[in-house]
């Protein structure tokens, strides 16, 4: 005769070390086992879409920086691609290559943060994160050399990039790309075969393939469930069709697969950067001639890229004036956590923290 037990509510609330920002989970717990999960978001809702309606197309770029502040360059690229698609602006060759190199650097840095803080939630308190922070500081130095800012860059412009690469950028990038595989090998040697890590993440929080597609997941979370869908391959935007790289996918879709897909994607990004550095034209214009207050034609467009966390989309409706009539940001992380309840119910609180950590959410993008 099982013992009749009652459940109680617990707030894994906005100010919590392992909710990656101000994410709030209202749990119904029965003892230690999670019975019901209700994510509550909105604690960082700054109303970016309302603010964007009163700013010109160039002034919105700093707003898009603050969406996914761990990969703010790719937010800029997504927004600029959408506006260029709307206005039909042709981006010069060299700017396209610079954008590819920087997006892939941003992907590596974002994946390192995702894996590092996932390990942090697993209990390896801050050791793996600081290992990966060491490489992230190198990437931030590259960006610092490029546009003077460490975290929010405002470097992209509609029609290209704001300024050309400084001449000591490419040698520093070459040095980084040569020694990075050694460091990734070091992480794997530290983490990959650690049996505690395997015991804690294998088979935990499984997102099956059909649910992943049905909830519209995207990015490493979707690929970890075994669906081969990467926008850079399926719908190549800008010049991704000139590079060959493969798309890693997981088998089961548990926390371990999500970790492993991110590590493999870091290796693929390095391959893309090497090819881009070789093929890049040495000189040429870096920005198309776009007037400061340019007015795109009336109409709507939906620009999307394969951001580190999923396919980030911008839906812009323009009525011909200098400011967009409506700007909607499609947040991949908010959609990835639709099935959080199916993945978490039945697991214990410690596993719940890991499952949420493996989803790699950023609150700036969820709450906009």
């Amino acid at each position, binding site marked *: 005769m099982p013992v009749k037990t009652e459940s109680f509510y617990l707030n894994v609330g906005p100010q919590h070390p392992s909710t990656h920002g101000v994410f709030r989970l209202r749990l119904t717990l029965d003892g230690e086992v999670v019975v019901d999960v209700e994510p509550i978001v909105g604690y960082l809702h700054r109303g970016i879409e309302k603010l964007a309606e009163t700013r010109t197309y160039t002034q919105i770029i700093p707003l898009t920086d603050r969406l996914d502040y761990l990969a703010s360059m790719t937010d800029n690229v997504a927004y600029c691609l959408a506006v260029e698609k709307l206005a039909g602006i042709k981006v010069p060759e060299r700017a396209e290559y610079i954008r590819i190199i920087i997006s892939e650097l941003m992907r590596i840095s974002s994946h390192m943060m995702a894996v590092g803080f996932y390990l942090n939630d697993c209990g390896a308190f801050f050791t793996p994160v600081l290992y990966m922070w060491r490489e992230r500081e190198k990437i931030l130095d590259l960006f610092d050399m490029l546009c003077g800012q460490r975290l929010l860059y405002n470097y992209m412009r509609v029609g290209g990039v704001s300024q050309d690469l400084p001449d000591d950028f490419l040698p520093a990038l070459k040095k980084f790309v040569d020694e990075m595989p050694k460091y990734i090998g070091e992480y794997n040697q530290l983490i990959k075969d650690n049996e505690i890590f395997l015991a804690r993440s294998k088979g935990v929080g499984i997102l099956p393939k059909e649910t992943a*597609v049905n909830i*519209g997941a995207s990015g490493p979370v979707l690929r970890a469930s075994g669906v081969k869908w990467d926008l850079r391959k399926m719908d190549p935007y800008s010049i991704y069709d000139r590079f060959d790289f493969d798309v890693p996918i997981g088998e089961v879709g548990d926390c371990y697969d999500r970790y492993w897909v991110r590590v493999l994607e870091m290796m693929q990004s390095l391959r893309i950067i090497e090819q881009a550095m070789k093929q890049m034209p040495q000189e040429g214009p870096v920005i198309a001639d776009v007037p400061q207050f340019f007015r795109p034609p009336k109409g709507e467009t939906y620009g999307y890229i394969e951001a580190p966390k999923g396919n980030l989309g911008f839906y812009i409706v323009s009525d011909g004036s200098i400011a967009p009539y409506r700007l909607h940001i499609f947040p991949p992380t908010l*959609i990835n956590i639709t099935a959080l309840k199916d993945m978490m119910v039945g697991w214990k609180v410690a596993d719940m923290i890991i499952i949420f950590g493996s989803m790699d959410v950023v609150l700036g993008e969820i709450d906009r």
Partner: protein
Amino acid sequence: MTTALNGEELAKKIAEAVPGSVVSSDKSSIIIDGKSLLQVAEHFKNKLGFDYLTAVTGVDYIDYFEVVYRVVSMQHNQSIFLKARCYTREDPALPSVTPVWRAAYYQEREIYDLLGIKFEGHPYLKRLLLWEGFNGYPLRRDYL
């Protein structure tokens, strides 16, 4: 390459599958009548294989509200825009597509929260980003 399907011929196919649902269609999108949105969604998902809903957006065009669904079919790598409009401004309502594609769960809650469009049939329609006592819907053009 995700080929954006031409709206016209797809609209013809939808018209005979779900009679009286297509209001109009142009090159890149099909405008569906609000009431029969659910049958069209099921038709898209089961018959035409559009199983991947990537974006749901609400826009306030002063004299009508428009909700845009971008649907992608993963097998044939095609995408199309579905649009649904509601012309009343007091309490606009549309059928929810969450039973068909669970991707719309949070996006419809957000549109309800910021634009005030009710989605009937949504499992848990509650404010997503703002707090309970917030009066008014910020993304409407007449919100100050």
